[in-house]
């Protein structure tokens, strides 16, 4: 357990310019994602009048007070101000307050039946920064906590998805006929969304060949099952690349793109800090040595 804690939260590790860049970029991404979600959700709530399926907070609080007025926009504005304040460390509570208000915004937006998952990783990232800011005075420690927290819940989330599938259907979940059903279903969604329905080459291959369709699902299921290995640094890059491949496969077969999750995996999953330290910052350090001599 101690080793896993050290893998996720390397507080004693020396800092480098490359690591500082990655931490700052990730935090800026979480701020951007929060603002984007707050406004896109808020604008959509303006056209909602009825609760069909209450989710989250809406199961305990009548969220209809958010309908038929400009509260969703005011809430989005407040969330924006709070995350920017959090990014510039104007107090230790802004991120936590923004997280609370975003819970309300989510409950209002998703009260018509849809249960999305495209924003869950970004939400966990915001929670990580909120907790980090509350627990640690130093920005370095708070950011390291948020990143380790994010790695933990990335691994947990994808592995839970595999568990849900295996509990529901067992290994038979990967039967290629299931992919046929989803391709048809998502094609109808595409028709609804754009007015046209067009299958791509990968979808046509899957629909024509049961073995290929089964293989696609099997690879996806295995990727999710072993996603928890991202908790250990030596597996982080290959597991994140595999998950990125999973998302690409989901996009090509079912026209679903989890954009925010993909961006987060690109930031956290690739060894940017190592590359930057070995190239940009090594050259800069070498130049400074030459100048001083």
């Amino acid at each position: 357990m101690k080793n896993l804690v050290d893998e996720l939260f390397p507080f004693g590790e020396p800092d480098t310019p490359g690591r500082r860049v990655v931490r700052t970029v990730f935090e800026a991404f979480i701020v951007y994602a929060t603002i984007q979600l707050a406004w896109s959700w808020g604008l959509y709530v303006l056209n909602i009048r009825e609760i069909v399926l209450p989710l989250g907070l809406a199961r305990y609080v009548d969220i209809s007070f958010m309908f038929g007025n400009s509260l969703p926009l005011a809430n989005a504005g407040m969330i924006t101000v709070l995350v920017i304040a959090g990014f510039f460390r104007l107090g230790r509570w802004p991120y936590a307050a923004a997280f609370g208000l975003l819970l309300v915004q989510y409950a209002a937006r998703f009260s018509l039946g849809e249960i999305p998952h495209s924003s869950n990783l970004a939400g966990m990232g915001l929670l990580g920064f909120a907790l980090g800011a509350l627990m640690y005075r130093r920005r370095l420690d708070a950011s390291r906590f948020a990143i380790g927290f994010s790695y933990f819940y990335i691994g947990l989330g994808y592995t839970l998805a595999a568990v849900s599938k295996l509990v529901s259907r067992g290994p038979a979940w990967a039967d290629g006929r299931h992919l046929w059903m989803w391709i048809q279903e998502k094609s109808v969604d595409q028709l609804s969304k754009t007015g046209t329905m067009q299958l791509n080459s990968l979808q046509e291959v899957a629909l024509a060949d049961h073995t290929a369709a089964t293989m696609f699902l099997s690879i996806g299921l295995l990727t999710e099952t072993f996603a928890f290995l991202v908790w250990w640094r030596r597996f982080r890059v290959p597991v994140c690349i595999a998950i990125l491949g999973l998302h690409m496969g989901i996009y090509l077969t079912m026209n679903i793109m989890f954009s925010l999750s993909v961006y987060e995996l690109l930031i956290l999953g690739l060894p940017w800090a190592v590359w930057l330290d070995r190239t940009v910052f090594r050259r800069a350090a070498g130049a400074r040595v030459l100048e001083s001599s």
Partner: protein
Amino acid sequence: MGRNAVVGVLFAYAVLVATNLGEFWPFSIYPMFSQAGNPWSRAVVSEVDGVEAFSWEATTLDRLAGRPFATKPNGVDPIDLANFVSKTEIWSPGRLAALRTMFFGDDRPDRSIVVYRVLGQLENDNRVVVEAIPYALISPDSTQLNTSLRTR
């Protein structure tokens, strides 16, 4: 401190998903696509020119009335629409009005559209069979409902 925070959140995660049908954003058991092979229900919309000769019979996707009406450019999320249509059990006047508001806000409809519920299921011969059932016809002057749907 970091480990304690992760464990604390994990406990909250477990309690919240266990008591809220697996979902309490941003916590989730991620059950999407776990119900493999089950019949599914979606929605599509057509724009029609007249309402007089409209048929309420179920049909196929290649024989929908009028022409396709794209929901996204018109500010409607297709998943929301699909869930709204499939999860509504009683089509009260308020629910019908909410469907109209989803498309046209508080404005009078400027065209006539048909909202179909689309059902898909796997047959024994490994074919996916898809059927479209007209649920509502929204026009500038009226909103009509398929008479087979429950209104109270």
